[in-house]
């Protein structure tokens, strides 16, 4: 298919801008959720973030007045392709925590003009990191049973309660929290979504150590924490609609559709040849592994093709697609299977916990395998996604308890 002249002009200017502005020292690098690699990449990363932010390319589809560049989806695709070519990456979605992928799109939809102007530019520039206070110790898959309270205190709400799995809470500046504002209403009807700064005496965070070791997850305690009423997102007691939308954005961000990431992983089949060996005809020595690897690569290809197909069918109008639950489950299946296969391929070398006897790839793959178990739990578990598919897409009756 030939590109429209408008799009190829954009491609040309994006390419020219990248060659002028992307620091060569960052080619092939990326930043993770933890924020440590941000420090490791130093001043070049800071400069790159600032230049991207000036272009509005941290959150390129957002309107210009809120820090975006107002790009169309086809333009973003072109931009990603050009970035991929030079090994460039967009660190802002990672640096903004839950800001670019979830909070921002929801503020765009539900926020007042003042809220948009106050919150969005800091997210789009990657300067303000956001976390989300949703789950609680007794409100996981059944999120609506949450009990963190927000009491009316004039211009402010006073929050008390505990949140859990608040990714990046210890390094975030702002938090979007789901709180109970009416304890007498039915459980989904008494909830509101508030935004509050993390740097205050009523907020305390404790990192959670996981089976994979250190993690970005925290417990977050609200002890008379303050949220301004002007930072209530959506209507009072209508937080459930806000969070449903927010969670759709979350699923969308977990579909395995990736932007450009400079790093190129070694194909699993090449890794398998190295660790397992080949027969004289070049086929993998382990016949059983070979078949399962072929199946996995087919699943992975099918997943990628499905992302492409759904984008093509939407003809550029893609917002939040009903297929997000399908893609989230499929992405999880592909990623978890890949981790299991990687470990199996590495054999004993894939079972090390630490030490010089193991390469960094080998140690990394163990941690990734363990951390990957969370994929089918967070963002609505595998089972919750299946509830959504069966009810919302297939039109089958509600199978869970009504609240």
């Amino acid at each position, binding site marked *: 298919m030939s590109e429209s002249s408008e799009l190829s002009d954009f491609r040309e200017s994006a390419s020219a801008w990248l060659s002028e502005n992307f620091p060569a020292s960052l080619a092939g690098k990326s930043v993770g959720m933890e924020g440590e690699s941000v420090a490791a990449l130093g001043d070049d990363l800071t400069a790159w973030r600032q230049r991207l932010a000036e272009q509005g390319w941290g959150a390129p589809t957002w309107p210009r007045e809120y820090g975006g560049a107002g790009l169309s989806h086809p333009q973003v695709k072109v931009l990603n392709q050009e970035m991929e070519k030079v090994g460039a990456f967009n660190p802002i979605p990672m640096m903004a925590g839950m800001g670019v992928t979830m909070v921002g799109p929801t503020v765009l939809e539900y926020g007042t003009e003042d809220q948009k102007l106050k919150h969005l530019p800091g997210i789009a520039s990657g300067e303000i990191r956001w976390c989300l206070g949703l789950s609680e110790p007794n409100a996981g898959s059944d999120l609506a049973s949450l009990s963190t309270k927000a009491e009316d205190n004039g211009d402010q709400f006073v929050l008390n309660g505990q949140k859990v799995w608040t990714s990046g809470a210890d390094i975030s500046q702002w938090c979007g929290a789901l709180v109970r504002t009416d304890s007498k209403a039915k459980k989904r009807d008494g909830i509101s979504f508030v935004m509050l700064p993390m740097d205050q005496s009523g907020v305390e965070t404790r990192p959670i150590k996981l089976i994979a070791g250190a993690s970005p997850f925290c417990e977050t305690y609200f002890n008379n924490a303050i949220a301004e009423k002007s930072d209530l997102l959506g209507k009072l007691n209508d937080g459930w609609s806000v969070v449903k939308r927010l969670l759709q954005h979350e699923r969308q961000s977990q579909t395995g559709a990736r932007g450009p990431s400079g790093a190129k992983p070694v194909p699993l089949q090449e890794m398998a040849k190295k660790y397992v060996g080949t027969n004289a005809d070049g086929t993998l020595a382990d016949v059983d592994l070979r*078949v399962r690897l*072929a199946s996995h690569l087919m699943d992975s290809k099918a997943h990628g093709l499905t992302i492409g197909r759904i984008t093509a069918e939407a003809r550029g109008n893609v917002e939040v697609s009903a297929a997000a639950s399908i893609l989230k489950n499929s992405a999880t299946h592909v990623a978890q299977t890949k981790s299991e296969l990687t470990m199996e391929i590495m054999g004993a070398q894939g079972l090390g916990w630490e030490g010089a006897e193991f390469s960094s790839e080998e140690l990394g793959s163990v941690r990734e395998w363990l951390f990957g178990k969370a994929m089918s739990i967070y963002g609505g578990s595998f089972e919750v996604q299946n509830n959504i598919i069966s009810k919302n897409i297939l039109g089958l009756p509600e199978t869970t308890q009504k609240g």
Partner: protein
Amino acid sequence: MAALTEEQSMLKDQASAWVVEQSPVASFREMRDSGVETAFIPTTWQSMVDMGWTGILVPEQYGGSDLGYLTFGVVLEQLGRQLAASPLYASALVGASAVLIAGSDEQKQSLLPKIVDGTEILTLAVDEGAHHAPADLALRAEASADGFVLNGTKTLVVEGLSATTLVVAARTANGITLFVVPADAPGITRQRLTMLDSRGYANVAFADVAIPASAVLGTVDQGAEPLDAILDRARAGLAAEMLGTAAQAFDLTLDYLKTREQFGRVIGSFQALGHRAAGLFTSMELTRSCMEAALQAIDAKAENVPEMCALSKCKVGDFLHEMSNQLIQIHGGIGMTDEFDAGFYLKRARVAEHLFGNQAFHRERYATLLGF
């Protein structure tokens, strides 16, 4: 569905409306019960010809519409939904592909217009044993003074009884050679096969079948490569029909989940069944992407056509296998009765899975193509 062109959308609607009205599963049942030897209803086939479906792949200069493989897939999917039986796939997709890929101008001129107007029915004769193994074929073509002499047997030839021309893959002195052979040539014996899916198949025996040198399709000894290309197209096309069959099985099952009541509630309200339906739907969406991408790759003359076709046939085969089993399981006792249509879908599923390579064949092929 892929982002279809206006033309493709129109054909989809046309095929969908036509098959429900003119060739529903009830017609297939009548055909099966009648035991008609060709295993299709001539008037149904004639309607397909009249609608121009036989010319979808054929260039306009030979009387076709040259709309490509994705377009053909759109039609085949709708036909697969109602298990419509006809030589359309064997002749206008597989046969036409063989002529388009390997044929000389003369062969195109003599065969393609007749594929389009239905006066010729082509089919590919490749398999010889219980499993699809095109690399191991043994039927011999010995060079003679003015051509070749064929000896051997082909099995499970699709529409082998109604075909007028066979595209035969044979072993010659230094490789594989493809031939176009009139199905009534002296020395050919065709034996009808009554298969599980009640469609038309035959074993074809060749005993000293003498054919002229002009019957060679392509180049002597150089047939392996075009045969591979023809088989890829056969697989991708069949996968489209199979996904239609599986999609209908899914729709029937979903409808049953919403209407069948037990324990005082519709059975779709049980989470075990809701989640099973969600899993099947997820598989169906992933599978559809593979099926369409393979056809699009062929149309785009992409480099990865072989692996995309292996992917498509394998994934569609896996899904149809599971879906046809669940069709019976979720319908329970009624699904076991011949009076209900579920059995037709299950039976068709297994035969179609086998044709042109089952899932195991294509997983192996995919691994080989990816170099491990």
